[in-house]
């Protein structure tokens, strides 16, 4: 669809003002239709949608509601200025163009290091010393300050939070979260910061890469060899740890789509034998891995089909000829495609797969995926689809701690990272780390090899009040997310502030800033929540506000500032705000 027909489909042609809809836009805001069109939606509608590319209609236009849906799922939500840019008749993008921009391959190779400052007083872009030394130097090389190692994992987490906060790379970072929760490592076991950073960087660079190649790479990645005991898997007494998870968690899952087992204990043991003998060169700054013949069991093995085969893993020192992985992908292609596409579906659309219609969609994705295992093809198909934009699915996910935190900052346009002062950005991000950790998500350190279970598990009688009492209200009413930690060099984290001018500039972008209270309340609610909150919920919000707020039009700017904080806070406390 070209821009012109797209704009027509949402009722706008360039240079033409849109008529106010029935929900009372005031005349002077007719030129700004952005936040007005969500009230009409019938949330009870149950539709049957597939993977055809979604085309906005007058009933479901490309507007704050649908753009924010894409931005919340493919990232961490949109700021008001981003929403306006997308809808701008001159510079705007269609849904398809927006997805394509997020999936731009140049984003994969955009460097993220340097700078990661190792200490607050260090000049960027000096690369951190711990990235330049071999694993064997950790804690032993006197030239490298011990503090650099002790706190390097915190630097990586802080840096990651800063990346999430940047809208251009939000999908890349969302996929990095996905992959780090798929090819899991835990910093409590993989304590080498070089290893953690290399693993995360690999996930970034392959955010929508080739899945089969990823499995080959991860099988001999230093962080994984270390985490699942590959370096201890030797000779005639193999360690099955990786061989089991390779199948159960990383590729095909225990059961296929019909509930039949994908592999047996014999397959686990056979693969463990094939993968014996790998070690990491601890003295090599590049963390080179190699196969050691004296630790490797080269006997032929039967995998899946009862045929004895020799697997070629003996080309030590050169890129590994992973015919084991080729064999797995050949014999279990359907199961792998189904398992992975189910995970993509759960991550981006809805976590419960219960209907035949959902299964049909996942099967279509799987058919696309198994052609050449390109993740990008699947993501592009899914994120542009009618099914992805189906009202039934909008607002059906529970926000993870980082989706919640980064989402709050982005919704109110609170800066976290000033490119000219990356050190400041890091100290701010440390505050985010503290908050997310207490909200049960410590990056790089999921609870076990299956990662965070996520979805309903993000939400409990611990985490929900934590979000409300420790994050929403302190930020919106108190004006800042208090800082509690230190960066390891004696520098305290900085609190993240929502200054009055931020609230004011945020509020003045609203169409109803000069309108009536009811319209303003609805507009803010519809911007902040994935689905418009019910009349009962908005009535409750209203009941919590000082009565003078209702006379919005008669308030002065200072009273409006206080009113905006109160309204936004009460909406963040709604159950609705936990959904995306």
């Amino acid at each position, binding site marked *: 669809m070209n821009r012109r027909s797209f704009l027509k489909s949402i009722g706008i042609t360039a240079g033409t003002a849109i008529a106010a809809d029935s929900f009372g836009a005031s005349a002077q805001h007719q030129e700004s239709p952005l936040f007005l069109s969500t009230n009409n939606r019938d*949330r*009870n509608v*149950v539709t049957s949608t597939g993977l055809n590319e979604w085309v906005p209609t007058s009933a479901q236009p490309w507007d704050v509601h649908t753009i924010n849906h894409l931005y919340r799922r493919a990232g961490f939500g949109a700021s008001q200025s981003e929403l306006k840019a997308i809808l701008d008749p001159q510079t705007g993008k269609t849904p398809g163009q927006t997805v394509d921009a997020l999936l731009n391959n140049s984003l994969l190779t955009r460097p993220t290091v340097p700078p990661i400052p190792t200490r607050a007083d260090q000049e960027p872009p000096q690369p951190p010393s711990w990235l330049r030394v071999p694993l064997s130097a950790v804690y032993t090389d006197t030239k490298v300050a011990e503090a650099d190692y002790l706190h390097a994992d915190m630097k990586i987490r802080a840096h990651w939070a800063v990346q999430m906060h940047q809208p251009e790379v939000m999908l890349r970072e969302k996929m990095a979260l996905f992959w780090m929760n798929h090819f899991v490592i835990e910093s409590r076991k993989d304590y080498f910061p070089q290893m953690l950073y290399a693993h995360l960087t690999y996930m970034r660079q392959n955010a929508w890469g080739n899945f089969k190649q990823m499995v080959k790479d991860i099988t001999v990645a230093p962080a994984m060899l270390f985490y699942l*005991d590959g370096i*201890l*898997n*030797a*000779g005639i*007494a*193999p*360690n*099955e*740890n990786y061989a*089991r998870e390779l199948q*159960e968690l990383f590729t095909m899952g*225990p059961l296929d789509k019909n*509930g039949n087992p994908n592999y047996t204990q014999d397959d*686990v043991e056979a693969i463990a034998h094939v993968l014996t003998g790998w070690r990491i060169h601890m003295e090599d700054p590049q963390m080179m891995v190699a196969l050691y013949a004296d630790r490797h069991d080269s006997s032929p093995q039967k995998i899946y089909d009862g045929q004895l085969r020799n697997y070629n893993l003996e080309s030590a020192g050169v890129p590994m000829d992973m015919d084991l992985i080729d064999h797995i992908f050949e014999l279990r292609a359907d199961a792998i495609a189904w398992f992975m596409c189910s995970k993509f579906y759960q991550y981006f659309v*809805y976590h*419960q797969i219960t209907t035949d219609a959902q299964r049909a969609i996942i099967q279509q994705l799987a058919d696309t995926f198994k052609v050449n295992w390109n993740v990008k093809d699947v993501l592009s198909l899914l994120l542009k689809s009618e099914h992805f934009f189906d*009202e*039934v*699915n*909008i*607002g*059906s*996910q*529970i926000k993870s701690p980082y989706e919640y935190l980064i989402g709050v900052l982005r919704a109110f346009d609170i800066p976290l990272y000033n490119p000219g002062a990356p050190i400041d950005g890091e100290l701010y991000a440390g505050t985010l780390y503290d908050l997310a950790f207490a909200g*049960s998500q410590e990056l790089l350190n999921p*609870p*076990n*090899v*299956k990662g965070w279970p996520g979805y*309903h*598990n993000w*939400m*409990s*009688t*611990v*985490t*929900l*009040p934590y979000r*409300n*009492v*420790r994050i929403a209200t302190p930020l919106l009413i108190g004006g800042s997310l208090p800082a509690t930690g230190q960066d390891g060099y004696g520098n305290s984290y900085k609190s993240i502030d929502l200054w009055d001018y931020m609230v004011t500039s945020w509020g003045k972008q609203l169409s109803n800033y000069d309108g009536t209270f009811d319209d303003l309340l609805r507009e803010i609610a519809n911007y902040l929540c*994935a*689905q418009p*909150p*019910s*009349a*009962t*919920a908005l009535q*409750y*919000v209203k009941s919590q506000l000082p009565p003078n707020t209702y006379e919005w039009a008669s308030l002065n700017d200072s009273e409006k500032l206080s009113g905006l904080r109160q309204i936004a806070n009460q909406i963040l*406390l*709604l*159950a*609705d705000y*936990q*959904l995306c």
Partner: protein
Amino acid sequence: MKRRDFIKSLPLGVAAAAVPFSIGGLFSGKAFGRSPALDVLLNAQGNSNNVLVLINLQGGNDGLNTVIPFQDPQYDINRKDVGYYTPSEKALLTPFQLRGDLALNPPLGTDFYNMFKDGKLAVLQNVGYSNPNRSHFRATDIWNSASDSELVVFTGWMGRYLETQVPENYPIDIGSSPDPLAIAIDYSTSLVFQGSRSVMASAVIDPSKYNAAQNYADDTPPNTNAGNELQFVRGILTQSDKYGKRFKDVFALPGATQNTVTYPTTNPLAVQLQKVAWCIKAGLQTRVYFVSLGGFDTHVSQYTKDPTQGQGLLHTYLGEAISLFQKDIENMNVADNVIGMTYSEFGRRVNQNGSLGTDHGTSAPMFLFGKEINGEVYGHNPKLDAADLDVYGDLVEQFDFRQVYASILTQWFGIDDYLRKSILNKPEFTSVSDFQSPTDGFKFPVNGSGTMQNIIRNPVPMSVSQNGSLAFNLYQNQPNPFPGITTIKFALSEGGPVLLEVFDGRGSLVKTLVNGYRSRGENQVIFDGLALPSGTYYCRIAFNGKTQTRSMTLTK
């Protein structure tokens, strides 16, 4: 109104009249620590005051190095490096012997061992299930959902039990108990508490510092994915709001957060059990607590013998935490109604691996503890001869873990056979005085008077009908015969837990239509048989320990 409240609200004369009727054969004359008559009176279906503490050992605790068959030559052959092998190593076991050929791992500690000596610690050997799964996650789910190995079940056994105790729209309506039915000392709850409609537990890290979220809206969200998720979040908001206020009241009382022992802050399990002790002392009506200890996945450098690292350190934590907790609640005089149970997703391979560790295995011992536990070793030692192991070199189970669950449900929570079958979906796991090994006919020890010994010293009497006024009726479905869809009505004289199920002509369960609280008066439910073959089906209602069945004819 819940059953218990209903009974409490009866005029005293009526209640008293029911008492002599009920005591009769139910008690063997042992003192219970409180009035048996009162117990009978208050124990409606599963409504005892008893408390269960679930201790989940995550990662797969190596059973052979927890309860150690140190005289077995096969143990020496298989555990040269990760076990007690040399004479000097074996000598370490002497003060921890359960009997001549079996000992606790010494890092569990003398205090823990003394609980066994005092008859408060039961060791159940070789607990597992047939066709065991060696995946952490699948195996954990199997234990929590109490499912067969091949069956994926999305609810937990505790969730299925607890949801018979509350209104159907729990937690939007939390019913009459002011306290959570179950508390997980964690950031989130576990599958074990998942009911068919909602989560039956609340997560709390520290109830004395709980910040409640505020509740609002009571409208019904649309029946979409998004609407259902909104309802889920609102349920948690409601729990947080209502229970949070209660925590605030309870823990504001002087002494509410004092213990009689010192729980070391460095022991991650002890700090959780400390909170449980507070809750019990405060008199919360919470029935089940969940705590956990992770790190048991010892593929590498297992360090069983070293109390300061690896499995040894975890055993230090475990033994110290449990023995301190038991001491604490006894000192505070609240131990009579509390038992605890440890469980782990699997034990580990008999033969050590090449990394001084052990890989995923199968059955393993469980611990049950408390004043009301018959402290014994139940079951034979693990059979380690190659001929007795499965094809992967793993142990074969002697008991099914659902027998242990059945014992707790019936003997500790006092639910009747019918509900027990429904919760466990395994009629063969009866347990009450029949805790018998399915594989080799082993039965529980016989006590001095020649009767079978239960795990629980004084089993709670199963639900009995205390009052004739609790009536119900299952009406014939309409229409009948029916072409696919039919309406089933039933009437209750008082609100209470109802189980309504449909079985096919072979007696197999086709569908559970109702499993939960239903209100007084007439209720109805739709049965959809469109996907079923024509034939005769049976609809059965269970209420107040009694059942009624009607046949229905499906003609398509």
